């Protein structure tokens, strides 16, 4: 909660506005009571005429307007403050996601991150829009009210001073007890409330097994158990708030009695003072209780804030870049020297050295988890290098300009991402600026997707991606190829699909990569024997290290693990 509070108090102008408005509101509350009492006192005790009390009524109207107006402004300020802090949090989260080196290499947890950005941030709303304004009011207004009460009758003030502290103390005890009770029942509650979801999820299975009907009873039963456990928790919460309410009622009662006694028996209190006190005292206790419920709202924000802090406090390493521009269209020599990368406890790649000549074809092979994808991401400049170097035509990559590097690079992954938009936009994402329709047609033709696109009613304007037409895995691959044809990169990283695609895509994939490789270096995480065979060099990774490098003939002759792979490949008995 401390972090959230700090965020709130950084909003200095909002906080000062809240302070001023709270003071005004407190004054208006006192004013309202004064005028109420003056009117009643006037006509009832002093037998004034209606004309005589009219100014008080006007004063009362003013006090009411100020009270409501400041209440409105306080609420608005809270909403404004919440909005600007939420915006700040969201921007920070986006920034933080962007700097997460793993984001580019894995797609996992993306769903969680979206929910962090949307839901967790929204959950902090109550803290800023409700709790903070209430907190400030609770610091200011009760003290003002208390001072007003003291000015009229110091004994009442004393009674309040003695009884009021019970409220926050009790509030704390209540909160703690309820939380304990809830924690105690947590497992049970989760299980009961999970049953419904469990059954809904398994409904197909249940129906196929002819068990649909029986589940009604189970839902009923678990709902009933859920209700009873929840009521147990709630009962203790309600019981505590009953006590709380009773304390404030009791205090009001004591005060009423005291005021009454002094009014009747000792006759040392005016009607004005007595009535004034009786109006202000309930207000005073309501303020305290409101704070209690706002505190409850605030607690809901805490876990959301913790999740965000976890994200913010993640260790970040950045890929380093410089400002040397790479010449356009020149295929560079790549020299990888003693490259290492690890993340957290995981050790992913160690001491990889490799010289990649321009226009060469490299196949990276190895078991899953051997570090193939990590190597690709390091070469691509998507992951920061821990140790070692990648030289591009002799220049360390960290001295190269980021944009000019990516301009030379295409990465065709196993599941290329299609953005929400038209097919044309998805192909054109490969280049900056606005490629002509002819260029896009050309690229699509080379990638073997032109005919299919033309056969669609809306052609290149067909919407794909989220909320658009679904494309098959093979078609997505071809869109990615079209992107590469349009971009004309000098370095291509290609993650060959592990599962068989449709025959047409398979054929196109081979042809296209061959054609692209005429003007580029191609590094492939290879799963197909022909790709491996056709490579100039094969890099065999084992457990994050290079176990062997060389052309097919060399490895086939000398390297046992590679030899072991081969009969499997040619013999036809796949598994």
């Amino acid at each position, binding site marked *: 909660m401390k972090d959230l509070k700090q965020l709130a108090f950084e909003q200095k102008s909002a906080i000062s506005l809240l302070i001023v408005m709270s003071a005004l509101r407190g004054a208006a509350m006192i004013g309202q009571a004064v005028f109420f009492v003056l009117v009643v006192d006037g006509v009832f005790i002093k037998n004034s005429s209606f004309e005589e009390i009219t100014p008080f009524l006007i004063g009362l109207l003013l006090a009411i307007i100020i009270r409501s107006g400041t209440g409105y402004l306080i609420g608005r300020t809270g909403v404004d403050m919440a909005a600007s802090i939420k915006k700040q949090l969201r921007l920070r989260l*986006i920034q933080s996601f962007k700097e997460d080196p793993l984001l580019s290499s894995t797609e996992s947890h993306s769903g969680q991150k979206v929910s962090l950005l949307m839901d967790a941030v929204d959950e902090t709303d109550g803290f800023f829009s409700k709790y903070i304004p209430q907190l400030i009011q609770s610091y200011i207004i009760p003290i003002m009210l208390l001072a007003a009460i003291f000015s009229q009758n110091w004994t009442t003030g004393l009674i309040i001073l003695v009884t009021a502290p019970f409220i926050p103390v009790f509030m704390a005890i209540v909160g703690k007890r309820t939380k304990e009770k809830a924690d105690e029942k947590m497992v049970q509650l989760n299980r009961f409330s999970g049953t419904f979801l469990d059954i809904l999820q398994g409904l197909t299975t249940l129906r196929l097994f002819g068990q649909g009907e029986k589940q009604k009873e189970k839902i009923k039963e678990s709902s009933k158990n859920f209700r009873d456990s929840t009521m147990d928790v709630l009962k203790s919460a309600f019981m505590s708030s009953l006590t709380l309410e009773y304390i404030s009622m009791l205090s009001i009662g004591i005060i009423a009695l005291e005021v009454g006694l002094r009014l009747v028996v000792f006759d040392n209190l005016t009607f004005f003072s007595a009535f004034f006190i009786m109006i202000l005292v309930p207000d005073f206790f309501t303020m305290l209780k409101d704070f209690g419920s706002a505190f409850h709202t605030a607690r809901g924000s805490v876990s959301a804030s913790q999740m965000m802090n976890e994200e913010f406090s993640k260790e970040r390493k950045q890929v380093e870049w410089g400002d040397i521009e790479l010449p356009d269209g020149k295929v560079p020599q790549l020299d990888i020297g003693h490259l290492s990368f690890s993340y957290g406890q995981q050790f992913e790649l160690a001491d990889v050295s490799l010289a990649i000549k321009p226009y060469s074809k490299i196949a990276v092979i190895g078991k899953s988890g051997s570090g193939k994808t990590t190597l690709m991401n390091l070469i691509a400049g998507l992951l920061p290098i821990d140790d070692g170097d990648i030289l591009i035509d002799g220049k360390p990559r960290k001295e190269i300009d980021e944009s000019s590097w990516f301009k030379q690079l295409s990465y065709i992954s196993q599941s290329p991402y299609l953005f929400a938009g038209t097919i044309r936009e998805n192909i054109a994402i490969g280049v900056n600026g606005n490629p002509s329709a002819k260029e896009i047609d050309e690229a699509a033709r080379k990638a073997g997707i032109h005919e299919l696109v033309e056969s669609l009613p809306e052609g290149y304007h067909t919407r794909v991606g989220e909320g658009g037409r679904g494309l098959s895995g093979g078609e997505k691959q071809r869109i990615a190829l079209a992107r590469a044809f349009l971009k004309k990169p000098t370095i291509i990283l290609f993650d060959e699909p592990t599962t068989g695609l449709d025959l047409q895509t398979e054929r196109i994939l081979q042809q296209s990569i061959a054609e692209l490789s005429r003007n580029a270096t191609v590094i492939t995480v290879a799963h197909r024997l022909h790709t491996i065979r056709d490579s100039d060099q094969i890099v065999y990774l084992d457990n994050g290290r290079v176990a062997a490098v060389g052309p097919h003939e060399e490895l086939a002759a000398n390297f046992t693990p590679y030899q072991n792979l081969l009969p499997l490949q040619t013999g036809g008995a796949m598994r």
Partner: protein
Amino acid sequence: MSELTHVLKLTLREKRDVSLAIVFGVLAGLASVALLASSGYLISKAALTGQMTVLIVIGACLKLFGLGSAVSRYSERLFSHRATFTMLGNLRVSFFERLSPLAPELYSKYRSGDLLARIIGDVESLQNFLLRVFYPPVVLLLVFMGTILFTVYFSIYTAILLAIGYLLTAVAVPAYFAWRKRRRDWRTRESRGALSAEAAEFLYGFRDLKIHRQLAGKEQQISDLIDFYNEEQRNEGKEEVYSQSMNGFIALVISLAILASGAYFTAAGELDGLFLAMLVMISLGVFENMAPMAAFPSHFEESRKAAVRLDSIVDEMPRVKGSSDLPEGGLSISSRNLSYVFPDEQRPALDDVSIDLPRGSKTAIVGPSGSGKSTLLAVLMDILPARSGQVLINSANSEKFSQESIWQSLNVVLQENHFFQGTLRSNLKIADSKANDDQLAAALERVELGRFSLEMDVEEKGQNFSGGEKQRLAIARAILKKGEVWMLDEPVSSVDSATGQLIYERLFNDYPEQTFIIVSHDLTGLEKMDQIIVLENGKLMEKGSYDELMRSKGYFYGLKEIEQQVMA
């Protein structure tokens, strides 16, 4: 409001709890008004008289009302929450009853966990219906009526003003703001949807964005959307503050009017000044009960939307099918010109597929991913309806048979098989509730899971088992079901190949008479099948035995060649 009728009906089924909650709610409200009224009266009376007895009587009243109000409030909360949770249970059951007939089709049509998350969320959010939508206006109405009746005795003007105040604060203002909220609500939702979609793209497509140097543009887009969403939320928040302040202001103005009229009539001698303070205090007190109404518009809108969404999910009428039972004994299944199109897609997932699966035959359905293999299986097993063409069971149109009777004869293993929280035993018994432990253990033995105890805990969605283990458990469940026709959708894709082959062999040996239809993306071991069906893009490319297909060097041969090239 009509959208909420169903929920209202379910709520009112809990007559006792709901009426008790209302009674105590009204008592609590009236007691709190009475408390303030008596304190107003006490002071006025005390100012005039020196009698201690009056003071003591009223003082006692004060205590009584205070205690009464607090205790009633406690009971009110207890009963209203109990009613709410009972209602939620009823809602779940009633929703389940409507969803159950539709579920298999819905789930495979929309293939998303989103649907379920939405259902659960909507059902939960309806718990506010009684507590914050239905119940506050009713209780307030009764509290106001009671209060107004009491004040009529002292001052008709006060009574009229209170009635006006009620109409304004409990009816007019909430209705007005609910209406406004409804009008602009879609904008907040739309901006939220847009932001969340862009954020998902940013995260899922991060690598492509980065390599294509589009990251800055996307970031700008997201930050614009953050602004947009934020503005909408800000407006929404302000609207709520506005509605709240408006209500509070009207309440205070009404109290002012009561004071003014009271003062006027007191000055004119038509009202005993003794009651003036009391009437003012009554007004202040009764409007304090109005607080829950401030949140009414948003809760009303939320409940309404949740109810509409839930209804829209189960609104589809279950498919009208015949109710005949399948004939006893083995089945032969065929399809004629079968097509299927998923909702919101133009391209058919199945396009004019005609196949024959004779009784006792073993058929494999193969093809690249997305070629329609699982869809074909789903239509054959009557989970999805054919868009056109038909499925024939023993030469009769399958439309005349009930789903239950078709499913009863099938042993199904889907790609996603659900396991319920409980034990292994409870999960296996779904297939056969009468099976004894020996039979269950034997089934486990058949899938090489004999080492598992039946007592083993199964966690949510079976997450304590590996993918391969879950597939084998699903097969064990299918074994226990004792149907005639096996429909298996990539049943051993996560099982190591030796065990996979072993399980297949056992199944084929144990049930030589039965029909097998197996979807597979793995082309090995298909020599044993009687028939291989090859799909691409929803179309039937080829069918025939392994040898036939290899000889004809067509599509299957091509796929096979690629597979030999691929090393996983």
